[in-house]
């Protein structure tokens, strides 16, 4: 049972632990008023589980969907940001006289002009790309002209943009509090790794490197702000409207309820849009000063340089095993340069979670460097960690002459080894079996396909995945039955392109017995909608879904109360389907519309909340991906031919949308494996590839055959909808599976991603050299 908090709060409120992207947070939550019976594997559901096209797709295919940059307000001004061209130093002089006089310019803010808590426009520069000033003008073009007319002189200081330079003796001070993240190194241990290694028949040691990756959402970060007296409205492209509200209220010293945050459509987030940013504060401050609405959207260079990234890692991995493949020890020591800010989202966690192994030790040292701060990026830590762990596992299999799939089955764990607790559900073995069958492991059933040329080599590989996807409270929802019998799902969540609008409507329609076409989801407004947390950690479905289901059941109770007297029966004899209420085992019925017509202007509102997660159960999504590649030995170019992905995510609410999300995650993983890499010149301290041409993301040309499937079922132990999350699991195993396939093709492992032609050719050359 959840614990009650200390203090005078009522028993409706309990404290519970929620896991978000591998971190645990304790929260006070309101207990649901009742506990709906879980949807189990056997529940007969017709709308939930159906491949229904996205309900907002028509807006998207017609161009009607309005994103933040499409918001206009009367008299709106447009802001542009000037960014520092040096990695570290001080502003010696700042002259905006000419800029202010340019046509169309309304206002300009620079050093000292923004409230302290916005942390904007410091005189000291800590990374290239740091905002130095902002202008608002009657057009975006005029604002851009003006920032170019600002004359700033800098005194450049020595900087540290790499982990090595930031941790060297006498390193430049990246942050006044020190260059290491507090309490470095971050150590997690179970068992005795030294003893485990001593007991091993074989020990393999590897050093893996992963790059800095950029989110590169097509829609950049942006906000529009407008004041009415001391009330502020912010339109923001965000994964967390309530978090943006809190950030803005704190930075501008406003009461929470004076800030309204609206998010309608957004063009992707992938973890980088979890709170307010410089653009938000700039829009709000300039709007206050000018008395006009102000829109501030990152330009592409600003977006690539300063909107977050997946930090690079160096992972020193040591694995010990018995001859039969049983793991005896796993050790991983990581260096992670975070940028100027960040959190301890390192690669260690997956090393503790994916396999049965009594002795595991990880150490992570996070350093601040003079580069833009990291942000969560789809599967933060686990994506990097999976590359190290799964690559090392594949090497272990090779050294032991074991099949890498058998090695994984051998080390499968039935319990969460990190906390020694059971799983709410774990069908990883079924994923292995099913995936192997589809792919044709170990001999891909596509090998009859001719090679593109004789200098080509084929290879296959695989990697597994785990990710915490329990979701959890707090999440509140309302389901409203309107006078015309249409239904609104009201919840303060967001749809990043994931399809949450659609799946929440499906859950409500199923629970209420309404036709799906009468239901719509109203999301993304802090002023009018019930609180829900950020859309991160693959947790929206598992967090918000149960609250919506409960609200729909509550609304149905009220509807049945009204219908019962009209049908001369009691509510417990009623059931609903297709927006019609039927007296069980009779032919007496009423449509929802007949009941709401009789109710006149009474609007029924059901309330729902998300209860705590079960205690002592680990809730995870599992999966495995198989890759087949073709490598050109002359050019080093890798083509991925095929990815087979099989995951266990509990109940799938909408298979069509789930497959889209899986394909998207896999393609981001493919980019991470093959070409995505921010290049930061260590001598200049600036980003060399801040464009979409130079920072390569996959195009349609790079798309392999992708076969996605899910293990059928429902995880009724996780929550009463039986659904877990899938957004992040999709990307986690892709890069190590591709890397394993490349190693299989060329006969040597490449220890650093992305697997650019240069790195692949160097590895091939190393074999040739070794052969003499």
């Amino acid at each position, binding site marked *: 049972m959840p614990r009650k908090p200390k203090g005078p709060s009522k028993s409706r409120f309990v404290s519970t632990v929620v896991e978000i992207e591998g971190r645990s947070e304790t929260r006070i939550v309101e207990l649901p008023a009742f506990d709906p019976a879980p949807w189990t594997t056997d529940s007969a559901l017709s709308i939930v589980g159906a491949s229904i096209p996205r309900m907002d797709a*028509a807006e998207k295919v*017609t161009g009607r969907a309005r994103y933040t940059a499409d918001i206009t307000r009367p008299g709106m001004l447009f802001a542009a940001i000037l960014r520092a061209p040096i990695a570290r130093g001080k502003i010696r002089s700042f002259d905006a006289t000419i800029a202010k006089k340019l046509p169309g310019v309304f206002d300009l803010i620079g050093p000292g002009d923004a409230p302290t808590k916005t942390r904007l426009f410091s005189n000291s520069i800590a990374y290239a790309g740091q905002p130095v000033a902002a202008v608002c003008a009657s057009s975006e*073009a005029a604002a851009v002209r003006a920032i170019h007319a600002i004359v700033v002189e800098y005194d450049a200081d020595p900087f540290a943009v790499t982990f090595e330079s930031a941790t060297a003796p006498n390193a430049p001070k990246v942050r006044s509090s020190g260059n290491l993240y507090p309490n470095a190194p971050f150590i997690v241990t179970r068992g005795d790794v030294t003893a485990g290694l001593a007991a091993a028949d074989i020990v393999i040691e590897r050093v893996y490197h992963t790059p800095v990756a950029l989110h590169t*959402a097509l829609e950049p970060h942006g906000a529009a702000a407008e004041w009415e007296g001391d009330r502020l409205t912010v339109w923001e492209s965000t994964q967390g409207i309530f978090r943006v509200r809190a950030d803005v209220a704190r930075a501008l010293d406003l009461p929470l309820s004076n800030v309204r945050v609206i998010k309608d459509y957004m063009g992707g987030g992938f973890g980088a849009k979890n709170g307010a940013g410089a653009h938000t504060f700039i829009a709000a401050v300039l709007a206050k000063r000018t008395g006009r609405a102000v829109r501030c959207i990152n330009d*592409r260079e600003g977006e690539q340089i300063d909107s977050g990234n997946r930090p690079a890692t160096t992972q020193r991995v040591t694995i010990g095993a018995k001859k039969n493949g049983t793991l005896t020890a796993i050790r991983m020591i990581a260096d992670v340069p975070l940028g100027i800010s960040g959190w301890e989202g390192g690669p260690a966690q997956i090393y503790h979670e994916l396999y049965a192994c009594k002795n595991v030790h990880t150490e992570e040292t996070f350093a601040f460097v003079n580069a833009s701060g990291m942000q969560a990026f789809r599967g933060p830590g686990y994506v990097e960690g999976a590359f190290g762990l799964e690559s090392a596992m594949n090497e272990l299999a090779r050294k032991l002459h074991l099949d890498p799939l058998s090695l994984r089955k051998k080390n499968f764990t039935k319990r969460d080894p990190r906390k020694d607790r059971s799983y709410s559900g774990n069908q990883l073995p079924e994923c292995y079996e099913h995936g192997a069958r589809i792919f044709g492991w170990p001999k891909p059933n596509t090998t009859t396909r001719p090679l593109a040329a004789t200098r080509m080599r084929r290879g296959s590989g695989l990697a597994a995945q785990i990710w915490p996807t329990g979701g959890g409270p707090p999440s509140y929802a309302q389901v409203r039955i309107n006078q015309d019998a249409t239904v609104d799902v009201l919840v303060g969540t967001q749809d990043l*392109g994931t*399809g949450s609008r659609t799946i929440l409507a499906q859950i409500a329609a199923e629970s209420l017995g309404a036709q799906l076409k009468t239901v719509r989801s109203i999301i993304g407004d802090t002023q009018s909608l019930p609180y829900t947390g950020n859309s991160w950690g693959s947790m929206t479905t598992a967090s918000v879904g149960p609250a919506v289901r409960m609200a729909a059941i509550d609304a149905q109770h009220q509807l049945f109360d009204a219908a019962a007297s009209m049908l001369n029966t009691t509510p417990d004899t009623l059931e609903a389907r297709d927006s019609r209420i039927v007296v069980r085992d009779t032919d007496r019925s009423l449509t929802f519309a007949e009941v709401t017509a009789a109710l006149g202007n009474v609007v029924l509102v059901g309330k729902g909340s998300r209860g705590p997660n079960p205690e002592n159960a680990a809730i995870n999504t599992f999966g495995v991906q198989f890759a087949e590649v073709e490598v050109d030995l002359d050019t080093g170019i890798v083509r991925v031919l095929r990815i087979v992905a099989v995951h266990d995510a509990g109940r799938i609410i909408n298979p069509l949308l789930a497959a*889209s999300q899986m*394909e998207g995650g*896999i393609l981001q993983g493919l980019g991470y494996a093959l070409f995505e890499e921010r290049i930061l010149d260590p001598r200049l301290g600036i980003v060399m590839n801040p464009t979409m041409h130079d920072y390569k993301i996959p195009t349609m040309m790079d798309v392999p055959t992708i076969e996605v499937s899910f293990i059928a079922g429902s995880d009724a132990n996780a929550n009463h909808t039986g659904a877990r999350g899938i957004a992040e699991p999709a990307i986690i195993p892709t890069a190590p599976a591709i890397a394993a396939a490349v190693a299989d093709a060329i006969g040597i492992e490449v220890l650093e991603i992305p697997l650019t032609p240069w790195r692949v050719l160097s590895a091939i050359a190393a074999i040739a050299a070794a052969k003499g």
Partner: protein
Amino acid sequence: MHLTVNGRVHELRPASAETLLESLRDSLALTGTKLVCDRGECGACTVLLDGEIVYACLTLSAACEGATVTTIEGIAEPDTLAPLQRAFIAHDAAQCGFCTPGQIVAAHALLAANPRPTDADIREAMSGNLCRCGTYPKIHTAIRAVANGEFRTDAP
């Protein structure tokens, strides 16, 4: 200057450096066409200029005197969505939707020029339109379906 956009004639006075994308979005409030890279690298701003595919972010409005422009807002048929739009909906070819207008206009141009494209033709023609959500497989399926004659408005 005059510009015909989606069948309607507009009078515009673009600044000398104003792009067609700015004119469409800011002067004509046709915000379906998106700005992503502003330098011809992503395809989000794809429109048809006199039937030819162009990146509106690289096209100067002043050079378009008398031209005819089709944007995503002009793709639909009078009473119904265009086959491509219906195929994109049915095959879930839009996740966040930010790249979608550019994708549909590019696909429209492809099918106008080459009604029976091979898979390779589709990949080639669409390779200039980036999608960070990774919707490519579904976009490909949607285009394939339309090329196969599915989703035709006159279909029985």
